[in-house]
C-alpha cells in the first residue's frame, strides 16, 4: 500500500496548525454535546467556575476529563501504531501486535474475578498495566530466545506476539467460563474499551506518559525512517539498530499499556490513523508522529462524543464507532489514482 505520492504537499507547520485547531474543535464539541447539550457561553462560564452547580460538575468533572482522556488515548495509540508499523515493516502492525492488549485483558480479568476491582478503584488499571508490560516482556524474551543471539528478529517478534496473544486470550476465556455473571459482564465491558470512567488523575498520569514518549519517539524519527526501509540500511546510515529498536519498542509499548490501563482496548485507532496521515502527508516520521498524535486525538475524542451522543441513553461501545466511521473514511482515502 501507499504506492502513490502523498495527497497534499503541506509544510509541517500547516499540518500541525490544522490538526491543533481540529483537536480544539473536537474537545469543544465533546464538552458541549451529550444528554444535556450546553451552549458555548455555559461551557466558558463553567470552566471559569461560574454558573449553576450541575453544569459545573458536568463540564469540569465529567465531560472535560473524559474528552481529554479520549484525546490522549487516541494520540497515544496512533503514535504507538506508527512506531510499530515502522519497526516491524508491516502495514498491519498496530499497538496491540506484540500482545499488549491480551496481557492487559488478562491483568484486568484477574482483578475482576478476584474481586479487587470492585474493592479498590485503582486495581483495574494497575492490573491491566502490569499485565500489558508482562506480556510484552514475555514476547521479547521468546523473540530473543529464538533469535539465538543478541539481535531481535522482527519476524520472530511478530510471531511471538501472535502466539502470546492467542494464549492469553484463551486463558482469559478459560477464567471467565468459571466466573460469575457479574464478573463476566464487567470484564467484557472493560475489554470493549471505554472512556466513561475518566478522571483527572487518569488524565494526568496518561499525559505524564504521553509527552515524554512522544518526545523520545520524535527524536528517533530519522532512525525510524531508516528502519522502515531496512535494518541493514539503517545500520549503514549510522543507526545503532538494536538499541534503537529496544528504545522505540519499549517506549511505544509502555505508552500503549498506559492508554489501555485507563480505557481498555480500543481497536482501530492505532492501525488506521498512521496510515491516513502517511497517505495525506508522506512517511517522514519526524512529521508523521506529531501529526498522528493530533489526528488520533481528534479521531478518538470525536468518536467518543458520538458514542455518548447518537444513541440517547444507551452508550455505544467506542470500538464500534471507531470502526464504523474509520473504515469508510480510510477506504475513501485509499481509493484514488496512483499518481505519476
Amino acid at each position: 500500500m501507499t504506492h502513490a505520492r502523498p495527497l497534499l504537499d503541506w509544510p509541517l507547520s500547516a499540518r500541525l496548525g490544522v490538526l491543533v485547531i481540529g483537536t480544539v474543535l473536537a474537545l469543544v464539541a465533546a464538552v458541549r454535546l451529550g444528554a444535556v447539550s450546553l451552549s458555548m457561553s455555559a461551557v466558558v462560564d463553567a470552566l471559569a467556575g461560574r454558573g449553576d452547580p450541575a453544569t459545573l460538575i458536568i463540564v469540569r468533572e465529567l465531560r472535560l476529563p473524559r474528552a481529554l482522556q479520549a484525546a490522549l488515548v487516541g494520540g497515544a495509540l496512533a503514535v504507538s501504531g506508527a512506531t510499530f508499523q515502522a519497526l516491524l515493516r508491516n502495514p498491519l502492525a498496530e499497538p496491540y501486535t506484540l500482545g499488549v492488549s491480551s496481557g492487559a485483558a488478562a491483568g484486568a480479568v484477574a482483578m475482576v474475578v478476584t474481586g479487587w476491582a470492585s474493592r479498590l478503584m485503582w486495581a483495574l488499571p494497575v492490573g491491566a498495566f502490569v499485565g500489558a508490560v508482562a506480556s510484552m516482556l514475555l514476547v521479547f524474551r521468546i523473540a530473543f530466545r529464538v533469535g539465538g543471539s543478541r539481535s531481535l528478529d522482527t519476524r520472530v517478534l511478530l510471531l511471538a506476539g501472535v502466539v502470546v496473544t492467542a494464549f492469553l486470550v484463551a486463558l482469559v476465556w478459560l477464567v471467565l467460563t468459571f466466573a460469575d455473571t457479574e464478573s463476566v459482564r464487567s470484564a467484557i465491558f472493560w475489554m470493549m474499551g471505554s472512556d466513561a470512567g475518566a478522571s483527572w488523575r487518569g488524565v494526568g498520569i496518561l499525559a505524564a506518559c504521553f509527552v515524554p514518549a512522544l518526545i523520545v519517539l520524535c527524536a528517533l524519527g530519522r532512525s525510524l525512517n531508516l528502519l522502515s526501509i531496512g535494518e541493514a540500511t539503517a545500520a549503514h546510515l549510522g543507526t545503532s539498530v538494536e538499541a534503537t529498536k529496544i528504545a522505540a519498542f519499549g517506549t511505544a509499548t509502555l505508552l500503549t499499556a498506559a492508554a489501555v490501563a485507563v480505557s481498555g482496548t480500543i481497536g482501530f485507532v492505532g492501525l488506521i490513523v498512521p496510515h491516513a496521515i502517511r497517505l495525506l502527508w508522506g512517511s517522514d516520521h519526524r512529521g508523521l508522529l506529531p501529526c498522528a498524535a493530533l489526528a488520533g486525538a481528534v479521531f478518538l475524542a470525536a468518536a467518543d462524543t458520538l458514542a455518548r451522543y447518537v444513541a440517547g441513553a444507551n452508550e455505544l461501545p467506542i470500538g464500534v464507532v471507531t470502526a464504523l466511521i474509520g473504515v469508510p473514511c480510510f477506504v475513501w482515502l485509499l481509493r484514488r489514482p496512483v499518481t505519476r
Partner: protein
Amino acid sequence: MIMRSDAPSWSLRDVNHRPPGAPRDTVSEASLEIDQGALTALIGPNGAGKTTLLRMLLGTIAPSSGTILFRGRAIREWSRRDLARSIGVVPQSEGEPLFGVRELVAMGRYPHLGPWQRERDEDVRAVDRAMTRCDVAQFADRWTTTLSGGEQQRVRLARALAQEPAILVLDEPTASLDIRHEMTTFELLRRLRIDGTTVLLATHNLNLAARYADTLVLMSRGRILAYGPAAEVLTPTRVATAYEWPVDVSPHSSGAPQVSPRSLESIA
C-alpha cells in the same frame, strides 16, 4: 597511478565466519589489506562469500574468529555513526521504501545531522550534486516505488554519494543496469577514486572489474584464491577453478585481461 597513503583502510587477518549451526565456513581464513585510495573489486561465483565478507568489513556481522581492523582500530570498536560518516554503502537491494526520491537521497545526510537538526545549505548541495552525478535528478519528485529496478539502484548510489564518504562500498551496483548506466557507474567510480575516494565493490562483471579496478580479490567457496592486479588474478586456470567453467582470457585494447567463457560446443 595516484599516490596512496601507506595505511590500509581495512586489514584482515585469519578472518573466519560460520553462521550458527552451519556445516562449513562462509568465509574462511581471509587475510587481506584493502588499500586506501584504491578501487578494489571483489569477484567470485554466487555463494563465494563476497557479501558475507563485505558485511564483516562494514561491521554489521561479527567474524567467528580473526581480526578486522578499520583504519588501524578494531571494527567492533567503531560506533555506527562514526562508520556512517566515513563509509557510504550501496546495498544490492532493500525493502520497499515509502519515500520520495529526494527524501530518500537526503537520508544520506543523516549521519552528519543531529536528531533535531535541519538540513543546512551544504546538505542540500550535497544531495543535489549526488542526484545529478547518478542521473536521478529528473526523478527527484517521483515516488521511489514507481521507479524501475535499475533506477532504484541509481537512487541508492546517489544516497551513498550524498553521505560524501571517504570510502564507498557497493554490492553488485550494476546488477540491473543497462550498458549506458553500467558504464556511467564505473566511470563515476573511477572519477571518485581519482578524487581520493576509496572504492570497494563486489561485482560479477569481471571484464569491467579488470579495466577499472586497481586490485581484484577473487573468492571461491569462502576462501580468497588470489588478490592483486587484474593481470595476476585473471589467469584462465584461476578463473576456471573459481567459477567451475572453462574460460579464455585475452587482452583488451587497454591491456586489461578480458574473460570470455567457452561455450559447450567449443569444448567438445
